[in-house]
């Protein structure tokens, strides 16, 4: 045991004298129980059939769940939906977020107030966003449905959440509504930290606004844009509350992202083992994203 601590403490002073180690240990112990152990548990679970009836024992089934995951066309569909959702929502959020942040950065008066107002949707619980969406896109009293019908869209679509493409579009709208403000405040912080002299010099040289954005702002903002993009990508996989309370992945799995699929397998179909296998696949993707984040954004390196 003492060898373990010696190994952990970096050498110089050991045991009780390394106060910092003792400060880190309580948190590590807690995380081992609530984070590391569950992680190992999930991996083990992916090789098992885990019946929901408490009296029956789980059985090891080897690679059965894994073979099922790689052979099931559904799995590919869940990931495709996730990908389409991510690309749709993120591209809109990044473009809109950049435009709004750029506009806000040019304001001389009321910039703080307008930025604060712009961040309001960010504080809405995702479940509330879903509920609001159900109200606003409702087939008979939803105001957005009403507007869309007024301009002649939605012909032959009785209900938005009952028709795959429309439901998908509505969910992306909700996502864009809630999370564009996050992109805005991240990019705005980046814009404010850019060296102003470069822009002043360029203006003296008679640069147009479009040139300025394309040749100066965007390249200088590259790292900040990457931060926003990665943070948002991880959240897209992470949160699914708004899908749960609107479509639950339907109609016909048109909005079933990987997270909703796991939730469904676990708590609707009670296929815990298979749900764990899908979870591990999602975890692998998150790990890669986290790795990218640490490597390219925080400037820390793994020793």
């Amino acid at each position: 045991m003492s060898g373990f601590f010696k190994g952990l403490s970096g050498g110089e002073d050991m045991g009780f004298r390394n106060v910092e180690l003792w400060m880190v240990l309580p948190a590590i112990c807690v995380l081992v129980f609530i984070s590391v152990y569950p992680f190992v548990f999930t991996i083990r679970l992916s090789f098992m059939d885990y019946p929901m009836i408490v009296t029956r024992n789980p059985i090891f089934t080897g690679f059965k769940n894994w073979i099922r995951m790689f052979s099931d066309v559904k799995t590919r569909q869940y990931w495709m939906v996730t990908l389409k959702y991510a690309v749709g929502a993120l591209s809109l959020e990044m473009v809109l977020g950049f435009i709004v942040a750029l506009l806000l950065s040019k304001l001389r008066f009321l910039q703080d107030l307008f930025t604060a107002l712009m961040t309001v949707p960010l504080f809405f619980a995702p479940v509330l966003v879903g509920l609001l969406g159900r109200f606003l896109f409702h087939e008979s009293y939803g105001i957005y449905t009403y507007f869309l019908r007024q301009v002649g869209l939605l012909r032959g679509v009785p209900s938005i959440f009952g028709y795959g493409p429309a439901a998908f579009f509505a969910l992306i709208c909700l996502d864009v509504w809630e999370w564009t403000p996050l992109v805005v405040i991240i990019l705005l912080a980046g814009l404010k930290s850019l060296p102003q002299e470069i822009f002043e010099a360029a203006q003296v040289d008679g640069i147009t606004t479009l040139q300025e954005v394309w040749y100066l702002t965007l390249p200088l903002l590259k790292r900040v844009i990457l931060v926003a993009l990665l943070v948002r990508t991880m959240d897209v996989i992470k949160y699914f509350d708004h899908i749960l309370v609107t479509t639950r992945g339907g109609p016909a799995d048109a909005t079933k992202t990987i997270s909703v699929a796991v939730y469904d397998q676990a708590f609707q179909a009670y296929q815990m083992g298979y749900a764990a296998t899908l979870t591990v696949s999602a975890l692998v993707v998150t790990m890669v994203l986290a790795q990218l984040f640490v490597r390219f954004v925080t400037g820390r390196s793994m020793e």
Partner: protein
Amino acid sequence: MKKSSRLVKRFFLYFVVIIFLVLFLFPVYIMVTSAFKADVSMFDLPPKWLFKPSVQNFRNLFSTFDILLYLRNSVVATLSSTGISLFLGSLAGYGLARGRIARKENIAFWMISTRMTPLVGVMLPLYLIFRSIRLIGTLQSLVVCYTAFNLPLAIWLMRCFFEEVPKDVEEAAMVDGCNKLQVFVKIALPLVLPGLLATGVLCFIFSWNDYALAVVFTSGKTQTLAVACARLMTEYGIVWGQVMTMGVFLVLPVIALGLAARRYLVEGLTFGALK
């Protein structure tokens, strides 16, 4: 000529910004006004922009619905998890920032990837583990879930904040005879207090706004506000007036805290990648 064209440009700029604001605040407006509309008038299309506000929804919510119980549950679960995360997180964050600890980058990487884990990645194993020790349906189980996400975030952020504290301030205190723990409590912690509070706000927002975990881990009398809000969608239809009113209750504390901490929001939400 030049001056007036610049004025037009500036006017146009404000005009566009205000259009974006109207678009993004419209659902908020609908939610708040619907909360104050008497039953049927909230379904009018096009909506009535002028109406007589009524508090009927608020009254219904307090009389037919045990909103105070759910509010209490939300507060207990949120504050417990936030408190635990801040306490352990600031200790560990300081340790990682200052200590010579082998593999500390690996530990830090584990922290950040836990934070990015999809909700289901924690939900599924903890559900089965808690089921075997009969903890499902309790607030404690929910606190553990929230802490699994909040603690890594707190450690990571506090580490970033502590790294910004100049080392010589601490070294000076050491020369004056403080030991490392005293330096931590008396010097470093007060210096990062705004960061600590901002971290607390982020932990609060995550737990308070959660629905997916709470709906699995709580039931009946332990449900949180977010779950109760969604439960207003019954099989007989949705009690929209009360949903909107609950929504106002749900979102108000978060907006208040979020705006109070907004100077640190960006740093916190990007794991300290941006200052």
